[in-house]
Every structure is written in structure tokens, then in C-alpha cells.
């Protein structure tokens, strides 16, 4: 790998031994993929915001960075908090959470606490090179914004933020951004973007899928991508005539014919849905994984207000979006209806809530359904019906 003079000096210890180690991590990481150089990043996004004692090695490394006064060199945002739940068992699990947050903030990180960093705090533009972690944010940045990030792990994200560099390979290069798999959506009668994301993740695994045209909303693209990056390791997708690097199919595939074509049927989406019994037995309804935007909260919230809720309904929102929602009359109406509005990570918070309350979760999130043990999936309409937002007679 060729290093610039600045990079070589950093490796030799000009910024201290700890920073040199961070650069060494990135060099070895890049070398494994045949990267020839390290390139500057415009921003970083970190996912390691939880203090959970499973990951002890990580906290030791962060401690060393803070002790040596290492700081981020590029704007850097941070994933959601795990939630504060003050029952005794959670006090033990999260007793060091605030300490860990202070450690990350000491590195100079923007305390936005959102996995949807690209809505407010960290706004890349087309072509920017990023050193992001968080699979749902990376797939959105690559696919919908046209910025360029590999799927970087926690701690590698910090190494990139403090050095300001990432190795050049994979999704930073044009040839790896082209479509490999054509996904024909013509068999779908009722679009359910999150179920589709789950199905495509399984089909594509680590390839770049190209979806035939459908006018997905920005929120659908966010949620669908997150699901693809859960059931698969999809890092970039294209939608014909919608996403920026796919004005048409030929461009999305870089002028080559697709290596494979698959047709998704309505039955593939329906197969993911919870049974009626599972829906009836669900004890909690959770929205927002990735966290809800203001637009999502207004859309879903408007359908819930004034209804008699059949189950506890939890919104997990981008903190800034929740502040904006709080300024609207809808906010008080939602609270009066009984909707709980949170700004933490639903996966972290619900893992505990389920563990000690033994309640099954029903969610229209393809990502939460994948990660949360015992969570059941249903389409947005089905979930709203289960919540009591749609009368049983309304085409049930």
C-alpha cells in the first residue's frame, strides 16, 4: 500500500502511538482487500454507542484513545442510546452507559444519538467518501444519496474518524457499485417495502440488487435497505429510475446484462407475515427501526390518534425528529391516545423489556423483526389494525 507523507508520519508516531495503531488497523484492513491507498473521508458515523459488558475489548481500546487525548478529525455522528430503563436489572446492565457516552463525546463526537444520522446531523452529498458504520445508514448513503462507504465495523469506524482516512476498495470504486442481480417487482400486488427488503437480503446476500421501478418514499427506502442489510449484507441497491446511480437499468448494470434475474412474488412477501394468533398474542407494538423520521411519525401517528389502542404502541424516533414532533399539536394527541414516544434504540430497549415482561413484539420493521428474538412481522396496515387504528370491519 502506498502511503502519503502525512500518512507515513502518522504511522511512524507523529500523532502519538495510539493514533499510529489506529492507522495500522486501517492499513491491515485495507490490505486484506487489496487496497492500494488510504483516501480522506468527509465524515464518520459510529455505531458503538452502547455500554454492554459483552464487548469488553472495545471499551478498553476507547479508554486508551481518550486517555491519550485522541480526537476525531472529521465530523462524526453516533448511533442511538440503548434507552434508560431504571428497573434494577437494567441499572446493572447500563450502569456504565453515561460514562461510555462521556468517553465518546470526549473524542469530539456529535451527540446526535441516531442511526438515521443522514436526516439531520451528518449530511453527505453525491460522491462523498465516508467512513461510516451502521449497516442501515451505509446502505442508505450508498444507494439513495450516492455517497460511498464500505460496511465498516465498530471500532474501525473510530479508527477512520480519528485518522480521517479509509482504505480505497469495495464500494468506493465504480466497478463494485454496479448491479449484479435484477429483481423484477412485477409480481407484487400490494407493495410492502420492508418485507421486500427482507426477501431481497436473502436472495442477494452480498450482491448489488437492482429493483425494477417502484415509487418508494424516502422512508420506505430507509426501512427497506435496513432490512436488506439484516437478512443479507447488501451494502448498496438500485431502484430503476429512482436512485441516483440508476437512471435506467443499463446504467445501473454498467452496460452489462444482469448476471441473474429473480422475480419476487406477492406470496414471498406474504410468507413473512405473522399469523392471526401471533398478532393477537403480541403484547407490544413497536415502530421505528431504523428510527422514525418526522414524516413517518406524522403519517403513522395521524392514523392512531383518537383511537382506543388495543396494545401498548411504541414510537422510536430520531431525537431531533421527536423534538420537531413535540412542537406539533399531534404530539399531545398521540400522548393522550397512549402512544409512547422514545428516542432510544428499540432493539436494545426491547431486548430488556421483553426479557423481563415476557411480551412478544409485533413490528412492521424488517430489521427489528430480524434481530429481536421473538419479534413478529406484519405489514404496516396489519400492525395498525392490531393496534386498533383500523376497525375490524375495514376490509379485514
Amino acid at each position: 500500500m502506498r502511503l502519503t507523507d502525512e500518512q507515513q508520519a502518522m504511522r511512524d508516531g507523529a500523532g502519538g502511538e495510539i493514533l499510529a495503531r489506529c492507522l495500522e488497523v486501517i492499513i491491515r484492513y485495507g490490505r486484506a482487500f487489496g487496497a492500494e491507498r488510504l483516501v480522506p473521508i468527509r465524515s464518520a458515523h459510529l455505531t458503538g454507542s452502547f455500554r454492554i459488558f459483552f464487548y469488553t475489548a472495545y471499551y478498553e481500546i476507547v479508554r486508551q484513545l481518550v486517555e491519550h487525548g485522541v480526537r476525531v478529525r472529521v465530523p462524526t455522528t453516533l448511533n442511538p442510546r440503548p434507552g434508560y430503563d431504571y428497573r434494577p436489572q437494567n441499572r446493572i446492565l447500563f450502569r456504565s452507559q453515561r460514562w461510555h457516552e462521556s468517553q465518546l463525546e470526549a473524542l469530539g463526537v456529535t451527540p446526535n444519538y441516531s442511526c438515521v444520522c443522514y436526516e439531520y446531523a451528518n449530511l453527505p452529498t453525491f460522491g462523498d467518501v465516508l467512513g461510516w458504520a451502521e449497516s442501515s445508514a451505509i446502505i442508505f448513503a450508498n444507494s439513495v444519496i450516492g455517497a460511498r462507504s464500505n460496511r465498516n465495523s465498530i471500532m474501525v469506524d473510530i479508527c477512520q474518524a480519528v485518522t480521517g482516512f479509509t482504505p480505497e476498495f469495495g464500494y468506493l470504486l465504480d466497478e463494485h457499485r454496479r448491479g449484479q442481480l435484477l429483481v423484477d417487482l412485477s409480481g407484487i400486488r400490494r407493495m410492502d417495502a420492508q418485507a421486500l427488503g427482507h426477501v431481497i437480503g436473502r436472495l442477494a446476500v452480498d450482491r448489488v440488487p437492482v429493483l425494477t421501478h417502484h415509487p418508494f418514499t424516502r422512508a420506505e427506502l430507509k426501512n427497506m435497505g435496513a432490512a436488506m442489510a439484516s437478512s443479507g449484507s447488501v451494502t448498496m441497491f438500485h431502484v430503476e429510475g429512482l436512485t441516483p446511480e440508476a437512471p435506467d437499468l443499463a446504467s445501473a448494470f454498467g452496460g452489462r446484462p444482469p448476471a441473474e434475474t429473480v422475480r419476487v412474488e406477492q406470496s414471498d412477501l406474504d410468507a413473512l407475515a405473522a399469523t392471526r394468533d401471533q398478532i393477537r398474542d403480541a403484547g407490544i407494538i413497536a415502530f421505528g427501526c431504523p428510527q422514525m423520521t418526522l414524516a413517518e411519525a406524522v403519517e403513522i401517528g395521524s392514523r392512531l390518534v383518537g383511537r382506543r389502542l388495543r396494545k401498548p404502541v411504541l414510537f422510536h424516533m430520531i431525537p431531533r425528529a421527536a423534538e420537531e414532533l413535540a412542537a406539533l399539536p399531534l404530539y399531545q394527541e398521540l400522548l393522550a391516545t397512549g402512544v409512547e414516544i422514545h428516542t432510544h434504540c428499540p432493539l436494545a430497549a426491547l431486548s430488556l423489556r421483553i426479557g423481563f415482561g415476557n411480551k412478544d413484539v409485533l413490528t412492521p420493521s424488517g430489521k427489528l423483526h430480524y434481530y429481536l428474538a421473538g419479534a413478529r412481522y406484519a405489514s404496516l396496515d396489519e400492525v395498525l389494525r392490531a393496534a386498533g387504528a383500523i376497525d375490524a370491519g375495514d376490509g379485514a
Partner: protein
Amino acid sequence: MTEIPIRPIVDGRARGPALVTRQPINFTAAMCKVPNILPSRRAEIRDAHHELFGRNVAGRVLVFPSCIGSTHTGLVLLDLVSYERGPAALVVERCDSLLISGVVLAEVWFGKSIPIVEFEDPAVYARLANDVEVEVDTGSRVLRILDCPVPAA
């Protein structure tokens, strides 16, 4: 003894019983579950979506197509490798940035590492049964199948 050619990604030599799956592994969903957080510090695959549910990966040569899912994977492997609680080696069809990250971090920060190698021939799945003793040797660029397991009674 059979030798299968492999491409070294992270150098090293390791042996152990094989644990084989044709299904990609989501390490975050698999490992970040209560049984693995308990003081016993197990490394069991606890992803209900995975066919190896309940199997412990510790000391195993893990043979699988690729890694999927969350970017927490690097931390999972960093801990498993740094504290020597994880697989003996990773044998994959397609290596991934997250697999590399955890192992590289363990190497640079804690001086601990495991070999990661890629294989090309999907016939590997058919030739390797669970519990067969295998050795990964990046120096000679081979995966050695050392013996067959004792048949189950």
C-alpha cells in the same frame, strides 16, 4: 488426508473440529444474546433464523459462505478472538469487511489473531462434515482434512 486449496486473507495456522453451514452467518444476531453474555461466556449461535442455532463456535474451524448483518460483527469477533473464546479459524467463500475488522483489531491491539481464508470450490461443503478434524495452514495455502469423526453410536 485431503488437502483443499485456500486463499489466505489473514495469516495463521489452526486446527479443530469443523462446523459447517451453507447459510451465511449474522454474528450480531447469533452472538449478542443472553446465553452468551452470562458469566459462562459461551459462543453459541443464538440466531433463530440460522440452522446452527444452539451450536457453540468456540475452538471450531467455522466453514460458511459469508457474513451478513450488523456492523457490530467486528466487536463480536474482536472479543471472541482477544479472549480466545471464539472459532479457531474462519473459512469462507467470500470474505467481508466485518470479518476482517474484528480480527485485525484483536491483532493490532491485543496481539491475538486467527486465520481467515477463502475457498473457491463449493464442493468443500460436501467434503466437510461437522466435527471432522481439519487444519488451516496459510503458509502452504491449504485446508487439510485430518480425519473422520467417530460415527455416532
